[in-house]
């Protein structure tokens, strides 16, 4: 089982390394969207600080949607998804491996870029720290839930749009708790409560999302 899981992860990382343009797109999108806000709403640090958490989180959600469309689509097209489903391991391990690989490719770089973008919004150091922690807990949610959407919309025409409509509402708890954690620190209330709730949501997704994704993948090749 471990070999299967590691092979799935290694395979996706290898493919990402061969096609850097594909995954860098969503990182650049994230940077671009976030950078538009200071230009659009003016350079008043007080105002920027107030919107920082929300802006960064919304940008992260949108950037994840950009990368999710290809999560299973390429494998579906060239037949390797069928081969992975025919492996002796259950489909939920496959879904888990794909989500982990997606997080390593998409979520992890976001954690590195986010502090720099936080500076653009005049965030104090402790708020930036909370932002990174919140993203570290929250971005796996994006990969896990996104996998469900990507699997459900597999093989549909216009699946990308449908994916957006399907998944964005599910992201709402992550957005509320994630952005709320940053605001909490700025308001001097601390972020523990918000981060705990975000962690609980992540745990729930970790339990349920691979299972649902696996079932959806089985249906999509039937």
């Amino acid at each position, binding site marked *: 089982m471990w*070999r299967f899981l*590691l092979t799935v992860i290694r395979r996706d990382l290898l493919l990402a390394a*061969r096609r850097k343009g594909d995954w860098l797109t969503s990182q650049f999108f994230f940077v671009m969207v976030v950078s538009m806000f200071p230009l659009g709403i003016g350079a008043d640090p007080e105002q920027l600080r107030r919107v920082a958490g929300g802006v960064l989180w919304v940008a992260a959600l949108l950037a994840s949607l950009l990368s999710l469309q290809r999560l299973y689509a390429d494998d579906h097209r*060239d037949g390797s998804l*069928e081969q*992975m489903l025919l*492996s002796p*391991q259950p489909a939920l391990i496959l879904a888990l491996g794909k989500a982990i690989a997606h997080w390593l490719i998409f979520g992890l770089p976001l954690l590195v870029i986010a502090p720099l973008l936080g500076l653009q919004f005049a965030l104090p150091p402790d708020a930036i720290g909370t932002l990174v922690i919140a993203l570290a807990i929250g971005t796996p949610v994006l990969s896990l839930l996104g996998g469900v959407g990507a699997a459900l919309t597999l093989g549909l025409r216009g699946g990308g749009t449908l994916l957006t409509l399907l998944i964005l509402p599910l992201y709402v708890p992550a957005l509320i708790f994630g952005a709320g954690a940053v605001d909490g620190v700025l308001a001097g209330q601390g972020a523990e409560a918000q981060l705990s709730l975000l962690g609980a949501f992540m745990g729930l997704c970790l339990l349920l999302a691979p299972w649902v994704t696996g079932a959806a993948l089985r249906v999509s090749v039937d």
Partner: protein
Amino acid sequence: MDLQAGQLLLVQGGNGRGKTSFLRLLSGLSQPEAGEVRWNGESIDRVRETYQQSMVYLAHANGVKDDLTPVENVQIYAGLRGQKRVQAEIEPVLVRMGLAACLDLPARVLSFGQRRRVALAGLLVSGALLWILDEPLTGLDVRGVAEVETLLREHVRAGGMVVMTTHQPLRLQGVDTVMLQIGPVMQVDGSVSAPANEAA
């Protein structure tokens, strides 16, 4: 109907008759509406792990990743089946499949037939007992077809099982071949038309 070790089941029928659907049912990718596919007498749903360990399925799509080299493709194919294969084990198989000149090239630059050969090499490396092959000869040249015929003979004689479809004439001397005709006979000699829902 039953398939024993050391037998080859040749599924025949015109286009759109359901040959591929039949193979997908056997592989467990699709669920039958009625009837049951059994492996060693047990429903494949119940023994899925053992069954999928002993079975490989070559579909129309090769499942070969364009950005990876043939060696990496086969390595990952084995890894997904829970097997560890080092380069030294894989390369001779690829060379045997006539890919000696393109071991380090990304599969993107290979021709359709060459990618088919990569997929066939994955099959060989897996060491599975049951091969389910959907049109394995598509895109292969004369020597490729001869090589696949040799592989089929060797595999069946070694006690393996093959279920395959093809529209090309096959030279399978000395192979215990069972024919299954789906739909009306077109030009074949030996034919049966029984509802098939079992392989053991």
